[in-house]
Structure formats: structure tokens, C-alpha cells
């Protein structure tokens, strides 16, 4: 289990790199293909109008691919952020230390206040008990 975990992490990090490269490459390739289509050097045996329609669709698909690659990159950014947040143990430890320090000081404060309050109340209670039991009103 312990050995598995770093390997998984390693694989995940590598997959992030490959995703980045693939998306950028896909953007570039699709753009190049669009430019090539715009040049229109390919001769084919298709009817002219069919060819034009095909080119139009291909361009649209390639443009959509570029958009998809862009959004995939955004997703990648979000994934990396999430990964960092979830696996950044030093900062989590820091936060825990800070929190525990905060709560400890708060606890001490409360304890001190309670103790002084208790002392005051005990002293006052002693006097009040004295007064109550020696009075005729009981």
C-alpha cells in the first residue's frame, strides 16, 4: 500500500505532463491542418461542391478540436490545483499546527478565565453562605 501510493502519484503526474503535451500538440496540429485546407492544394476526384463542403466540415471539426484542447487545458489546470491542494501535506501540517496552537492558546485563556472566575465565585460564595446561614431568613 505504501509502495503503491508513490507509484500512483508518479503515474498521475506523468499523465498530467502527457495531457499538457497532447493538448498543445493537438492545438498546433489542428491549426496546421486548417491552414493546409485553406491553401487547398489537394486534388481529389470528388465533385467540387462536395469537396468544399467536406473542407468546411473538416475545418469546423478541427476548430472544435482546438477549443476542446483549450478547455482540456483549463481542466488540467484545475486538476493540478486540486492535486496540489489535496496532496500538499506540508501546508496542511502547517495549518494543523497553527490551528492547534490557536486552540491551545484559546484553551489556556478559557482555563485561566474559568479559574479566576471560580476563585472569585468561591470567595463570594463563602461570604454569601456565611451571611445566609447566620441570617434569620432561610
Amino acid at each position, binding site marked *: 500500500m505504501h509502495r503503491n501510493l508513490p507509484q500512483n502519484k508518479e503515474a498521475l503526474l506523468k499523465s498530467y505532463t502527457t495531457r499538457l503535451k497532447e493538448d498543445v500538440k493537438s492545438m498546433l496540429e489542428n491549426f496546421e491542418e486548417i491552414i493546409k485546407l485553406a491553401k487547398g492544394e489537394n486534388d481529389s476526384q470528388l465533385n467540387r461542391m462536395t469537396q468544399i463542403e467536406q473542407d468546411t466540415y473538416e475545418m469546423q471539426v478541427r*476548430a472544435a478540436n482546438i*477549443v476542446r484542447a*483549450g478547455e482540456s487545458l483549463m481542466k488540467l489546470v484545475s486538476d493540478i490545483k486540486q492535486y496540489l491542494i489535496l496532496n500538499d501535506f506540508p501546508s496542511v501540517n502547517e495549518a494543523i499546527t497553527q490551528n492547534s496552537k490557536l486552540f491551545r492558546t484559546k484553551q489556556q485563556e478559557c482555563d485561566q478565565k474559568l479559574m479566576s472566575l471560580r476563585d472569585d465565585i468561591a470567595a463570594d460564595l463563602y461570604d454569601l453562605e456565611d451571611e445566609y446561614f447566620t441570617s434569620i431568613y*432561610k
Partner: protein
Amino acid sequence: MANSVNISIEAPIENQIQEITYDGQEIYQAPLSMSENLARLAQKIDFSKTEDEFCNIKKEGESTSETKSEDESKEPGYQSSLWPWDSVRNKLKNALTEVCVLADVLSIAKEKRYMVLDPIQAEPVDSRPMVQVYGRKKALGAAGAVLLAGVERLRASETMRMTRNMPDFHIDLLRLRQNWRLKKVSNTIVGDLSYRTAGSKFSQTGVFEVTKAPEEQIAQAMSMNASGPAPSALRVTVPPELQGVAFISVLCQKEQEDVVTATLSSSALNCPGTLPGDGAELHWQQKLEAAQNVLFCKELFARLAAEAVQLDATIPHMVVGNQIMATVLPGIQLLIGLCHNNGQNTSNANPEGVKTEGSSGKSDHDHVLEHSLHQLLRAVHHNNTHHPFPHPATGPLGPSKRRSLAGPMAADRYELLEMSKEQSLLEQIIQQAQHFFMRRRSEYVLDTIAKEVKDPLIVSHWNALNSPTQSCVKINIMAYGYDAVCRTSLVVHVGEKTLKCICRDGKVRHLSYELQELRDLIYCQIYQHQMTAVQAVGRCMGWQLLASSAHLGSGPVEPLANASTCLLASPTGDRMIAIRCEPSVGIQVFIAQSPRKDFFASELVQDKKWENLGGAFKEIKLEKMEGKNFLNKMELLMACLSSPS
């Protein structure tokens, strides 16, 4: 033309200047001869140019001759230096061949027997480029539109977040991560709110799921309360069994009558109205804390229930549904119930309407019991994770220090068994409840005695330093105005089921939970105090103590303790006061005088000296006497009797 002027034309220098000497003389090159000039000009002819054109024409005809002629035309270039006319000759030869072929073709065509020449239809002007350009323009436009739409979508989401101050999912996630345990399982973020890391061994998992809140809902929530705190971009989903509000209600019942209700609840749960049924707008922190509290209550209750079943008490504990019943003291039962309100149905889980009863009957909960319930389980958690040092390098972690020492110290089976005994939570809670009752009852007894008995004042001081199962009260018995003369103080330690009284004389008395014993003891102490106080007052007044007995054998048998007496004589010795104190009757005071001032001889007593033997005691009606209290009256009496009159 005859009149024309003769114009002399001088030919320009035809010969090129080869060199100009220093004295300005020009040395000319010798003019080329006719043949040399011809060869030079012939070399300048560019046959390739014409040949290309020729080849183009010829392409339609035959191609084999073309390559051949090209090959040949190249050769003279290399050999031109050998023989200047070679290229010319080759070209001419090629031309001749071509002309011959042309002549042949023409002659064949002319015959029209073997070959017919048809005019080739001219290729129509191609309209393709323009259509294609328009098509491509349209296609590029469409592609661009797709790209722009994508960009627009990205930008819109970004600007919406920026301008409308939308909460960032990742910042919220970071805050969540700093407070809770999270991990990523495939595509979902899963958190854990159980107390496992704090040492809990409860089997139920506290897994919750973190998702991103839909943006429309955030926008809606923001528009709902613009001034309030910003809604979170996080959505936390807790399992249904941990939703809602839960608390442990502790109820002490005395013959179906509520005595005290303690409620275990966190601060958020004290006001369940703040927790709406649909936890949509509830902040994740509060939601998780509530769920954690539910888990904590469940663990506490499960543990208590298991212990209740395991423990073999004299009166067995009962576990019925969500309720544990245990007997604290005879006639008093401790009910511990788990109330879980998961939002859907409001009051199904309340055992016998504990909540409503508690809120209507006794609104103030015992926060000490509530706190100790918390403390007990947390102490268990703490012990699970914090083992005493030193930790063994090998072997199990966790046995106590005493058990680690048991090996070297060669403990026997009995000692080991003694070590393995540890108090369960239920036992500790029952002990605390028992102590709570003992304390309340002692308080009640002391207060009622203080109310009943006016004469010596009974002042009780409760000690501020106490533990959940032990407290201490100091009781002072004294008379008003005579507290410096005599005061009796005793200390009562209130335990779980017993009381320990340490009296003034150092005697220690253990009392049971039946408080009549305490009451009797205090009454005894009161009368004992009166007797000692009278003696002290007598000493102050110069009276002499003739006799005193704390346990008088004479008289009727007292139901409570024994009667005590004392006998005091005046400084002159002619007056005596006898005091008899019976706890059941009260204090009786008798006085006697001897000798009497006036002596009348009778037949029986003929001499005055017999008067010194002491006379008959006469009882004094104390209640008719002047004086604030008994001691005051006695002081006045003594003063009155000591005065020589």
C-alpha cells in the same frame, strides 16, 4: 547635295586599350581578324533559348528526340573550348533532324490516309478558383466562429467569476483541506469526518463527498442575501445516517418523576432551529461539524450500550431501542437516550418525548454531566493514541506502564487480573450520577436542618475544589454572638455512595447513602455542641464544672444517641445549674441553691449546716427567659445566679 559640308567621321577606337603606360601612351590590342571575330560572335549565340522553345513545340510530338537533343546540346558546352564550332554544328544537325521529322509528319498528314489532324478543343476557362475561394472563405469563417465561441465561453465564465465576486472553488477547497481530511478517489473528492485519527475505534465510517456547487445556485444564493456571507462554491454531501442533529439525553428518573436532565449537545445544536431541514444554504463547516457530532453521539451511545450489556450489575442494566436504563441508587434510575433528528421526521427518535419533557420541565441542564460525558469518550480516544513511554522497539504498543513492569516484577495472575480491570464509561457515568445525587441530598439535608434548627447556627461551606465523584462540605455549628467562645466544625466528604464525616474530635464516621444517618449525626453534633458551649460559657463566667457526661445512662432510652448532662457550680459555690440534653426532647435546665438564705428549722432538718448538702433542683422554663439564644440565656442565668443578693 553638292553644297553639303564635308563631315569627317572618325571611327571610334575599335581596339580596346590593353594598357596605359606611365607616360600616357596607350597600347592597343591587336584587332581581331575576320575569322576570329566570327568565331567570337558565333559563341555568343544562345542556342538553348531557341532550343527550349523548340522543345516546347516538339513536346507534343515526340519526346525521345528531345532528350537526345538535350544530351547533345550539353556536350558541346564542355567541348567548346576544343572546337568552337562544335555546338553550332550540333544545333544545326538537330535542327535538320527536327525539320526532317516535321516534313515527314506533314507529308503523312497531308496524305490523310494514315493520319488525320483534328483541332484540339481548347480547355474552357476554369471557374474553379473563385468558387473554391468563396467556399474556403466560408469554411474558415465557420471555423473561426467555432473558435470564437469557445473563447467567449471561457472568457464569460472567467469574467463572471471576477466581476460578480463569485467564490472560488479551489480556495474553498483549500480551506476545507486545512480543516478536514480529504483525498481523491478516482474522479471524486472524498473526506473523512470520523474520529479515527483521534483514536476512535468506532466501526462506522464518516465519509463525505465534496462536489462543486452549480453556478446557478451560487448566483441565486448570492442574489437572495447580498449582504450576508458569501455562499460557498463547495457542496458537501454527508451520508444520510449522519445528517441532522443528534444528542445524548441523560435523564435521572425517580419513580417516574424527572429529577434532572442533562443534554449532550454542541453549541450549534443547542438551538436546533438554526439548522434547517434542507441543508442547502448551510455552510459546509457547520454541516460537517453537525455530522461529526452525530457520529460522536452514535459512538458514545454504542459504547455505552455495549457496556451496559456486558456489565453484570446487581440490578441488570436494560438496553431498549435507543435507550439505556441503569439503576443509580435504589429508586433512582439513569436513562441515557440517543436522540437523532435527521431532518426528515422531526420527533420520531426521541425516547418517550425526552426532549419536550426536558425542555418544559427543567430548562437548565446540568452542564457538568454534559461536559463529563464529552470528557469520558475523549479521554478514551486520547488513551488510544497516547501510549505511555517508553515505547517498545518490538512488541505491541499500548499496554500500560504497570503491565510493562509486570514482567520484570514477576506479577502473579491475581495482580495481572487486577490490572486488566478498568472502569467502563457507563460505570463512570453512573458513579458521577450517584455522586450528583449524594451531593444534592446532602445539600438538601443540611439546608433543611439549618432551617429547622434556629438556635445554634449551622453554617455549611461547600468546597470549590472537587472532582466529578467527590466533593467536600465543611459544617460549622455555633451560636450567634458566641462563635468565639465555642464552635464545632465537622467536614463531610461526599463520595459516590457513601459519606465520610470527620468530626471535631477527630472521629471518622462512614455513612451510607441513606441520608437519615447524616441528619441524625448532625443533630447529635448540635446537642453535643450545646453542651460543650455551655461549659465554655460557664468557664468564662467563672463557674465551675462539677460533672459532665456525654452518655448518661439514666432516664428513658433515647431513639437517637444518648442523653448528656453537665453540672455547673457558681463561683461562690452556693448555686448549681444542671443541664440535661436529650436529642429527642431538647435541653432542660435545672437550678439548685444551697444554702438557702432563709433557714427555718423543721423537725427533720434542724441545723442550718444541712443546707450545704444541696437542695432540690427546679426546672427553668427556658422559653420564658430573656435572651437571644440558649447560650445567651445561660449566660444571663449564670450572671443572675452569681450576683450576691
